[in-house]
């Protein structure tokens, strides 16, 4: 990033190739829509270009990048059309058996078709529950679980304390655990 800031355009292409896929993935898990996720990732990298002169290499580049990405995703959630259109379209395409360019849960090639169907159902359920989480809880959980960030890095990305991240991740996980009780088993019921 420092090289790009100093005028090396090739350095930006390196950054783009290294991080674009990850940002798309993050935005996809956040919004549940692949086309929108690609648009968001593109917007994120445009913002990176615009903000490059102001970039200060105090924190990790990924922290800065995911801060921009998280803000873009949170802005996306505020769009009114997002809530109504996204789920319906994705469901329809899945039901029609279209190629949506994804597998649901990681398929390592050992599962039977029934298992895959169950996996898809479970993945749909997880995404549905993820989409119901408040934005900050969702961001904290995805940054921690999907992007593999430490709480400290998540805190830096979201601009909150580590204690707040701990609380956000716990609340998000506990809520998913309640809503997905039929899949994970509930010893207490």
């Amino acid at each position, binding site marked *: 990033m420092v090289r790009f800031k100093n005028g090396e*355009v090739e350095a*930006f*292409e390196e950054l*783009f*190739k290294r991080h*674009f*896929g990850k940002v*798309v*993935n993050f935005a*996809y*898990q956040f919004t549940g829509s*692949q086309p929108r*996720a*690609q648009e968001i*990732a*593109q917007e994120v*990298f*445009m913002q990176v*270009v*615009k903000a490059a*002169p102001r970039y200060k290499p105090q924190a990790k580049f990924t922290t800065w990048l995911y801060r921009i990405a998280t803000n873009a995703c949170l802005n996306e959630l505020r769009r009114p059309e997002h809530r109504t259109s996204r789920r319906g379209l994705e469901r329809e395409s899945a039901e029609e058996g279209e190629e*949506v*360019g*994804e*597998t*649901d*849960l*990681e*398929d390592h090639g050992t599962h039977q078709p029934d298992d895959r169907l169950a996996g898809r159902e*479970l*993945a749909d359920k*997880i*995404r549905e529950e*993820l989409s119901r989480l408040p934005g900050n809880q969702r961001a904290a*959980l*995805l940054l*921690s*679980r*999907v992007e593999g960030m*430490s*709480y400290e890095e998540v805190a830096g990305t979201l601009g909150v304390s580590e204690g707040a991240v*701990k609380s956000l*991740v*716990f609340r998000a*996980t*506990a809520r*998913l*655990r*309640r809503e*997905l*009780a039929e*899949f*994970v*088993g*509930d*010893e*207490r*019921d």
Partner: protein
Amino acid sequence: MSETRGSAKAALPFRCRAIQRELVAYLDGELSRRKARRVARHLDSCTGCLAERDALDRVRGMVGELAGPSLEESAERLALARVRQAIGEGSSRGALSAWRLPALAASLGAAMIVIWQIQTRVAPKPVEVASERSSSEGVVAQTAVGGGKAEGGTGRGLEPEKGRSKRAMGVKIAKRGRSDSTLSSPPGPLYENPELFLDLPLVLDLEKLEEFEAVMQALPGSGRGPKARGTDERG
């Protein structure tokens, strides 16, 4: 369901509730050693919390294993091309904006200079006025002390000089009179030369009179020359 959950939670001992709040951070390896040991010790002896830990761990695993979209290379290339285009536009815009601030500062400075120059031309120059005053006062003093003859020989020869000094003094008095409306006593020169009082109405409108005179001179066949003016002034 929520009632069941609520009652199940309420039924949990306080210690278990406190431990379960730490379980996600424990699984994420984000607890301090001391806290992690405490949680581990509790899990060794509490089957309920152990089951909860396993359930939370499964949820963590499910979220972590959610597959991402399979991104086509063409989509990535297209996105990169768009961003590259934005970089190009951004750099040209950046170059413009880099010039914008100095240009603005320069134009502002030029405007300030122009305004200052206009003001200095329009406003009366205090130095010149002071010199005019001092010269006129000097002439008045000379005429007062020398009585005219010592200066210029004949009285006639002194007339224009005297007239000029009177005129200058008159202008000075007129200016003072106009600027200081609360004049309680006559100014010093007027006090010394009270005969100037006679000419005061004349010198107050001296500029108008001079203008009138110039117009009259410009008229064809008026027959009013400098000599005639001198006569008028004397008369």
